[in-house]
């Protein structure tokens, strides 16, 4: 009898467990990417790992540094391909997409599961009622060998976002508001459960943006309930039966925060921390040198669609550059078919292959000294995009697209 996190962990260990207990639980799916897989392989070898216990429960994704810009990276990618082949595990090679878009899109994660990923934004699948959390490479290797992971059952903070978002205000704005109010360590070691009219009204893709940013509050998971939209989302993706898990009426929460977001403006996270969040009017007019739309936070179809709607027939301001990266090949293909990619290119966007390099400063868009960048990514730390002398601001895709036309931070409510 408890929170979603307690209920999922209890179901996996076959007895009722409560916040604070330590459990060793079976893991339903695992993933690692090109920043973490090389060390996972090393840890696997250090542990004398002979085989991946269940190769059907693991994917390796090459998405952070693609196509490889230098030989060191190329050699690590090669090692990953060899490991995948040897152990018979699924490998998503360059151009397939970003890990946190690929797993939900291909039906690998479903309600009630425990999923771990060697990537901190693994919290994304919480939007699908999955207890999913980021781990390091050694934990990943241990899970590959044993099929299990140890967890401290977390306490949960319940968030209820009621009201109706204004036109021009999106799930990213809710996510930034959440990080701003909870702060970057407000939920450390804890799970979030996120509810409310605002969440109910959102698409599953939009919800994933919020669960994605849950980790920026320090949270272990950013869980949501399974509803009709979740079931519909999964219908054409997975044939495996799943069992949604709900919090019980008597669940105990560390805190419950209820807010009405009807009056909320678009939000901006200012450098150098994700919790440094202000309403857009505080920074509107700030000149921008580069704008980036994409990543595991906001590179999904509806993110590119709203950007294309705003940029259709317009041009990117001469004073700035716009980089767009769809977060999967499926999204890119769909966008080519519906014409939104064409609209973005015609407006002046540089479209990258599905990948997430610019967010983490590996390739394809390192800003120069003294530049201001507006990005739809999840982190704005000093040096995050590869240059410590550039400032990074975070926003929704709509704010990013409209700002690209204006050449400065601009409020998308002016055109929506």
């Amino acid at each position: 009898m408890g929170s979603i996190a307690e209920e999922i962990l209890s179901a996996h260990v076959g007895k009722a467990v409560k916040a604070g207990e330590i459990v060793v639980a079976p893991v339903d799916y695992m993933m690692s990417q090109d920043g973490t897989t090389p060390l996972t392989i090393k840890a696997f070898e250090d542990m004398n790992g002979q085989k991946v216990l269940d190769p059907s429960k693991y994917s390796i994704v090459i998405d952070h540094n693609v196509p490889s810009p230098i030989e060191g990276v190329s050699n690590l990618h090669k090692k990953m391909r060899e490991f995948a082949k040897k152990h018979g595990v699924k490998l998503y090679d360059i151009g397939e997409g970003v890990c946190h878009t690929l797993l939900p899109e291909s039906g690998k994660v479903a309600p009630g599961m425990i999923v771990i990923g060697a990537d901190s934004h693994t919290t994304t699948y919480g939007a699908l009622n999955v207890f999913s959390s980021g781990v390091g490479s050694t934990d990943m290797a241990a899970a590959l060998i044993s099929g299990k992971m140890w967890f401290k059952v977390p306490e949960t903070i319940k968030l209820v976002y009621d009201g109706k978002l204004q036109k021009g205000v999106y799930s990213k704005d809710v996510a930034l508001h959440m990080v701003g109010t909870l702060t970057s360590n407000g939920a450390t070691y804890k799970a979030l459960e996120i509810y409310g009219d605002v969440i109910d009204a959102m698409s599953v893709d939009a919800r994933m943006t919020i669960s994605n940013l849950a980790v920026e509050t320090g949270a272990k998971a950013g869980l949501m309930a399974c509803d009709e939209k979740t079931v519909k989302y999964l219908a054409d993706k997975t044939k495996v039966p799943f069992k949604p898990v709900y919090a019980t009426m008597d669940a105990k929460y560390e805190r419950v925060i209820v807010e009405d977001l009807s009056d909320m403006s678009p939000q901006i996270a200012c450098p150098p921390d994700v919790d440094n969040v202000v309403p857009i009017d505080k920074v509107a007019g700030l000149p921008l040198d580069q704008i980036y739309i994409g990543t595991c936070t906001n590179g999904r179809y509806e993110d590119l669609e709203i950007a294309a709607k705003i940029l259709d027939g317009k041009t990117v301001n001469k004073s700035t550059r716009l980089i767009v990266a769809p977060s999967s090949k499926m999204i890119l293909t769909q966008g080519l078919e519906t014409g939104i990619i064409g609209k973005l290119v015609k407006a002046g966007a540089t479209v990258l292959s599905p990948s997430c390099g610019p967010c983490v400063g590996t390739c394809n868009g390192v800003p120069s000294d003294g530049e201001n960048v507006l990005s739809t990514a999840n982190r704005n730390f000093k040096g995050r995009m590869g240059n410590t002398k550039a400032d990074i601001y975070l926003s929704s895709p709509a704010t990013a697209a409209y700002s690209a036309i204006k050449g400065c931070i601009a409020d998308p409510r002016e055109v929506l």
Partner: protein
Amino acid sequence: MQTQMRGNAHVFGKNINTDYIISGKYKFKSTDMKDLSTHLMEDIRPGFHKEIKNGNFIVGGENFGMGSSREQAPLVIQAAGISAVLAKSFARIFFRNCINVGLPVIECDTSKIEEGDELFVDLEKGVVVNKTKGIEIKAVALPPVMVKILNDGGLAEHFKKYGGFNL
């Protein structure tokens, strides 16, 4: 594992994220931690790796290690010769990763530790002695599962010893 350590403090502020510990632009290139450790804290304290004497400590404020799951973060700290990290609080994934790779992490009130202070750390007793200031600081005890993994020398060694989890 060594449970008593002596060294000097290198003090950093709050919210030291894993990108500051080892920047994304380097971590994808190599798994040679000694090589990567020359970039430790480079974005916020250029040349830091040259200041480190073997056995010294990194001392942080709240939420040390926030951000990504990169295990390169504790590994480069270790490779640079740091014997332990002390902070008021730690981010979750970084904290786990440190234990898993056998890098001691000590949660304690670090507000009375200044750059260069000579520290003595006793992991078993859970105390940090600031010899320069003449004060003793009590550490928050690690959960028993983490003590077990740390005592085994990290999770890889634990797995080698038991063939799986034995917590």
